[in-house]
């Protein structure tokens, strides 16, 4: 904004200059001194008035056409870095610690290669589908290969390239989250093909619906500050579908499939927590009040969920576990994601306290009852936690935090709840159906699942030719 203002000032001065000089010139001729002086003054002042009017316009323009803010840009650059860290090495380690040792490298490889291929696709078409004009469900291809964007193109107060980058980090972590469901038994090639199509056919459209120009859900008024719907429900349901369609791990329920090294999982969860501030507070797209409230809400909900999950486990199972605490942290982060810029700190605290026991039940009671093998509990944590978050956003949002019109049940707007449910359902159906179709097609062509022998030997050597030699 600064430089527009300065431009305006500069212009007014520049315009004022000839007027003043003209005034001088008039005096120099002398005729009727007072008159001509007055005339000159009048002229000068008239010119000055014009200048002022112009400046006023320029200032008004500043309000509607924002300029680059170095502070906001600094924070968004940082946020992009933080969200990338959630994927490599964050979620990669979170997952790697929970699988058996023979599959560790394969899990890590999914994150690294996934980050590569999905980034390329995002730049090629994903960003355009999500964030260019189109219909309420899909954007167009006008920004394919980032057409029309240059270093000086702004998106709000930050370079659009930074916005593209920030959104890219969301777009590449979301598909990879899914792979926790069919972990330990999915072909690497099948997984990468699936993620690629899923990015284009599921992630980008849902992002468009929620955040894109003219998006269906955003237009309806569904609230999703940082991606509870777009990221967590979306990936959660896809993971559930994938887990069911690919079938259980061989030996499931019989063999010991204890997490091989929860230190890795703890490090991964920590980096997810740390990086999630980029995710949530970064979604404010600026370094101001909204980022501040998003950050503290994110932290408080996470802390509360650690405590509530651990206490629930302590009571039910007799011991509080590190995996429980780490899972609680993720559940808290998931639940607050759609809400962080809309709720009070107390609201965030309550949401965190609720999500802990709910997700603990989802990964133990619910999962056991239904019998699917969602290996790393993506549905139980991201799916259930995401749905809870979407709905509780409709409860706890208050206009005093999120601004005009961002009110939930407790702020006298029960209708928001219905909107939130609409968002949840549309996402469940869209992601669930398309994921199922994609998986079916892949299964019929290259096949989804590794052979039993490969599963027994471990994916690290069989698929990637490498082993951990420890």
């Amino acid at each position: 904004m600064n430089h527009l203002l300065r431009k305006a000032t500069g212009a007014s001065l520049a315009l004022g200059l000839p007027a003043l000089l003209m005034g001088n010139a008039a005096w120099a001729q002398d005729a009727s001194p007072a008159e001509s002086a007055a005339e000159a003054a009048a002229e000068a002042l008239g010119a000055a008035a014009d200048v002022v009017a112009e400046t006023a316009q320029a200032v008004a323009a500043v309000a509607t056409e924002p300029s680059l803010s170095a502070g906001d840009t600094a924070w968004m650059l940082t946020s992009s870095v933080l969200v990338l860290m959630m994927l490599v090495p964050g979620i990669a380690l979170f997952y790697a610690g929970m699988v058996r040792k023979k599959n560790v490298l394969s899990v890590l490889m999914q994150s690294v290669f996934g980050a590569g291929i999905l980034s390329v696709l995002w730049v090629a078409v994903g960003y355009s589908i999500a964030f260019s004009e189109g219909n309420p469900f899909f954007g167009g291809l006008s920004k394919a290969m980032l057409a029309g964007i240059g270093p000086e193109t702004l998106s709000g107060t930050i370079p659009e390239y930074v916005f593209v980058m920030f959104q890219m980090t969301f777009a590449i972590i979301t598909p990879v989250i899914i792979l926790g469901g069919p972990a330990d038994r999915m072909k690497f090639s099948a997984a990468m093909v699936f993620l690629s199509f899923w990015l284009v056919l599921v992630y980008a459209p849902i992002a468009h619906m929620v955040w894109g120009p003219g998006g269906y859900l955003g237009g309806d008024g569904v609230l999703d500050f940082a991606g509870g719907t777009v990221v967590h429900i979306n990936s959660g349901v896809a993971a559930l579908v994938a887990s069911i369609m690919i079938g259980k791990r061989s030996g499931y329920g019989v063999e010991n499939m204890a997490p091989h090294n929860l230190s890795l999982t703890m490090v991964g969860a920590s980096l997810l927590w740390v990086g999630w501030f980029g995710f949530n507070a970064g979604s404010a797209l600026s370094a101001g009040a909204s980022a501040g409230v998003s950050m503290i809400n994110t932290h408080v909900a996470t802390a509360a969920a650690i405590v509530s999950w651990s206490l629930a486990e302590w009571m039910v199972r007799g011991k509080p576990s590190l995996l429980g605490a780490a899972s609680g942290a993720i559940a808290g982060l998931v639940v607050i994601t759609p809400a962080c810029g809309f709720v009070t700190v107390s609201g965030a605290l309550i949401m965190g306290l609720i999500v802990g026991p709910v997700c603990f039940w989802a990964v133990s009671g619910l999962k056991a009852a239904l019998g699917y093998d969602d290996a790393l509990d993506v549905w139980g944590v991201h799916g259930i936690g995401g749905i809870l978050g979407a709905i509780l956003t409709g409860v706890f949002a208050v206009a005093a935090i999120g601004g005009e019109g961002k009110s939930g049940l407790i702020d006298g707007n029960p209708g928001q709840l219905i909107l939130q449910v609409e968002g949840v359902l549309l996402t469940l159906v869209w992601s669930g159906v398309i994921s199922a179709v994609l998986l079916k097609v892949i299964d019929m062509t290259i096949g989804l699942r590794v052979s039993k022998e490969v599963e027994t030997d471990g994916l690290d050597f069989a698929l990637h030719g490498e082993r951990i030699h420890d």
Partner: protein
Amino acid sequence: MKLVTAIIKTFKLDEVREALTALGIEGMTVAECKGYGRQKGQTEIYRGAEYVVNFLPKLKIELAVDDDRVDQVIETISQVARTGKIGDGKIFVLGLETAVRIRTGETGSDAL
């Protein structure tokens, strides 16, 4: 010569080694192992799932000793390694036909 093999609880190693050294036993070889027996396994719980770990960590000590020291060695190990609680382990004695010290090529008792 005999090869005395003892399966013991892991935290007893240093005591056993010291007691044997006190007897004048100058060498032994130790390996990690896991034991299954009357001592019940332990149940670990991860999120919803329970995994019973049937095999518990133990250490296996192998000592080649002259015949005349076997009883003493058995006696010592079984006293020092005893906690009285289930899972203390076993001692097995095998006949040892030959022993060779690689460095010198010495054989028999000299090799120990």
